[in-house]
């Protein structure tokens, strides 16, 4: 095992350990804000995994969108809907058992499936495209048979409608003001 491979292996297992522990914290911790921090950890580890897989660009996007956007949104949701003293009530025994059985069942099924399937791996040292970001850009805007311009546009529409929908759902119907920015401030204040 050469030094590069060794570091690769060590980093993988280290990150895996951290992310699994953090993921467990996400689903079990009683204080929801701590769960959010654990989630951020999992996602950052995810970015690390992507770098290990040679997808630096996706890792950057993961950090940008997940940590810079989604986690902050989740934290906002936490802030708007609960307070520091709130701790979550434990789930009922039966539900917990159901959850454990289902997730372990899924894990077992999936692992057996992986074990019993032979995947068509690519050649030992294949060439990755030199500039992944450039290639992804070409793919996203390509409208040939292997282009993704249509899904790309649909995703844009999805995001737009999600944003508009979120504003419509969350705005306070009692307030007549059309000034959204002022309104979000007021709902911030009323929720705390």
């Amino acid at each position, binding site marked *: 095992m050469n030094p590069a491979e060794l570091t690769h*292996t060590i980093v993988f297992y280290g990150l895996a350990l951290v992310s699994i522990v953090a*993921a467990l914290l*996400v689903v079990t911790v009683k204080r929801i804000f701590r769960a959010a921090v654990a989630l951020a950890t999992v996602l950052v580890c995810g970015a690390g995994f992507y770098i290990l897989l040679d997808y630096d660009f996706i890792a950057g996007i993961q950090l940008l*969108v997940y940590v810079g956007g989604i986690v902050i949104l*989740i934290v906002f949701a936490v802030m708007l809907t609960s307070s520091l003293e709130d701790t*979550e009530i434990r789930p009922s025994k039966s539900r917990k058992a159901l959850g454990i059985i289902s997730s372990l069942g899924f*894990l077992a099924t999936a692992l057996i499936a992986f074990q019993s399937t032979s995947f068509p791996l690519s050649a030992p040292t294949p060439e990755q495209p030199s500039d992944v970001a450039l290639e*992804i850009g070409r793919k996203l805007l390509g409208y040939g048979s292997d282009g993704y311009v249509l899904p790309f546009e649909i995703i844009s529409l999805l995001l737009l409608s*999600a944003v508009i929908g979120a504003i419509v759902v969350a705005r306070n119907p009692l307030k007549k003001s059309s000034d959204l920015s002022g309104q979000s401030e007021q*709902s911030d204040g009323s929720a705390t």
Partner: protein
Amino acid sequence: MSFVPGLFHWLCLSTILFSIGLYGVMTRRNAVGVLMSVELLLNSAAMNFLIFNHFAAKPFIDGAVMALFIIAVAAAEAVVAMALFVAIFRSRKTVDVTQIDTLKG
């Protein structure tokens, strides 16, 4: 079996994360917690795309594109979910999913 991470190791990792997410989806009482668990699921799904892209189709980049799409969908989902939580909290003063059962038969 070698300890150098190969396809199987990576798949194990993503599956474990996915299972943990499933457990969270089924047991979390706080709706925001459920949302976080769903993010775990999405994250491990995106990771699966990249894993297979890396191990099975390295000269191509489609798995990465899919991962990008998943991230975008996750963002949209988080936005809508947050708006819904705020609206639900405003009307019911709780985001405990076990208490939101108006559709009970």
